[in-house]
């Protein structure tokens, strides 16, 4: 069983192929953790690089992520049984007043593709919900998205609330969305700014490595 074929199926967005090849890999006795890292996560990594280089666009990323999800349906119960933990827990959402969720969904799928557990709060999420979800679920990263220049300041409220609750430092924040810039992220005190969904994955990995 060649895991590269499964990796290529993920990259190509071949949902049926990814599922079938995952079945075969499991039957061949390959450890679930190895299938995850060497085929699925590796495939999504490559898609992320292609996306950053403008070699592929949103449709290809979404199909790749959906292919990985197909594979994960089979793999997840086995990973749990083997006691393999997710790479980290991340709360994501579009901020209060903002109903745009395409970008946020893309980020969530890419993070999932990198092996993180995602707690997706949806859109129009008030600061209190971000902080509460992170505290209750033990997430160490909050990712916030905004498409509107008028809603992006709600990000600062979440960051301020984290500080007020004494979670500053324990929970990292990353922000992104069309109007968001590095300068803005610095201004509101976010831990990091992600220019695109693939960068969000890089940031999350960096945060976990720092812990």
């Amino acid at each position: 069983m060649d895991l590269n074929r499964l990796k290529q199926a993920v990259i190509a967005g071949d949902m049926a192929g990814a599922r079938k090849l995952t079945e075969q890999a499991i039957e061949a006795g390959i450890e679930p953790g190895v299938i995850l890292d060497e085929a699925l996560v590796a495939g999504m990594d490559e898609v992320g690089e292609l996306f950053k280089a403008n070699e592929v666009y949103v449709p290809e990323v979404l199909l790749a992520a959906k292919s990985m999800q197909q594979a994960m349906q089979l793999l997840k119960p086995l990973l749990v049984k083997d006691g393999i933990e997710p790479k980290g827990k991340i709360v994501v959402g579009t901020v209060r007043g903002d109903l745009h969720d395409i970008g946020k969904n893309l980020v969530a799928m890419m993070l999932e593709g990198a092996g993180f557990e995602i707690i997706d709060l949806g859109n129009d999420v008030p600061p209190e919900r971000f902080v509460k979800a992170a505290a209750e679920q033990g997430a160490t990263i909050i990712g916030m998205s905004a498409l509107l220049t008028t809603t992006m300041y709600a990000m600062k409220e979440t960051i301020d609330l984290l500080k007020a609750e004494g979670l500053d430092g324990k929970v990292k924040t990353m922000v992104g969305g069309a109007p968001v810039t590095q300068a803005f992220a610095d201004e509101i005190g976010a831990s990091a700014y992600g220019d695109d969904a693939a960068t969000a994955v890089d940031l999350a990995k960096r945060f976990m490595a720092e812990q």
Partner: protein
Amino acid sequence: MTDLLELIELRTVLGDGAMGTMLLEHGLSPGDCPEAWNLEHPEIVSSIHQGYVDAGSDFIETNTFGANPIKLARFDLDRKLEDIIRAGVDLARQAAGKRCLVAASIGPTGALLQPYGDTPREKVADAFRATVQAVAQADIDFFLVETMSDPEEARLAIGAIREFSDRPIVATMAFTKGAKGYRTMMGTTPEQCATVLADAGAHIVGVNCCAGTGEAAEIVAEMRQVSSYPLIAQPNAGAPKLERGRAVYPESPQSFARGMEQVLAEGAVIIGGCCGTTPEHILEIASLMGKC
């Protein structure tokens, strides 16, 4: 008033500027439904329309950009679809009088189509049908399908219009500039979009909501390479910058109007503005065009 398709044979046609960013200036809160203001604050919507009519617009757009069942459902306002559209068309028509045409603005649903997203094609097609049926009963001169990111969604909107109306269709898409040039969110080029929109049945195709007049000129030039269709450009007043918590669009009315001369030189026959443009921007173009 002459039909749009006749008008573009005669001269350059000037549209209006932004509605959404103008409503925000007038107190619309982030997260509020802009189209609900057709019912809740008609006097403000009217005054914005009036500003564009007085500035010399040949057409103004109804405040119905997000008036489709999918988007309105996010505000729990889908039951009000017909009221919102009827009021939106009435407000524009009253402001336009006999001085200019009225375009029905039709924006995206905000949903991603299968297989990339989770929304079935038929649900999006039905949403546009509901919008177009409501619009077609009202008094509009043409349709303006705009700010589309997915050519397939634009096709569904144009298809719905063709089912219920024989009015002219103008269709524009939003592009951003990346390492490989201009692309929609879905990765399609201006050339591809110009072809797809025209094949779907649009009479006039083009670009809107791009970051400034310079980008608009480049996108129009790319579309001109492949399309013999009349072209339209309605760019933003540049890419917004944040100043003290507010989005500020950098292109002044004067620089916007000068930039639009290049857009015209590249072959656009209809010009106007999107986010961050105001009646002053339109007035400045009108005076450069010798309209006043």
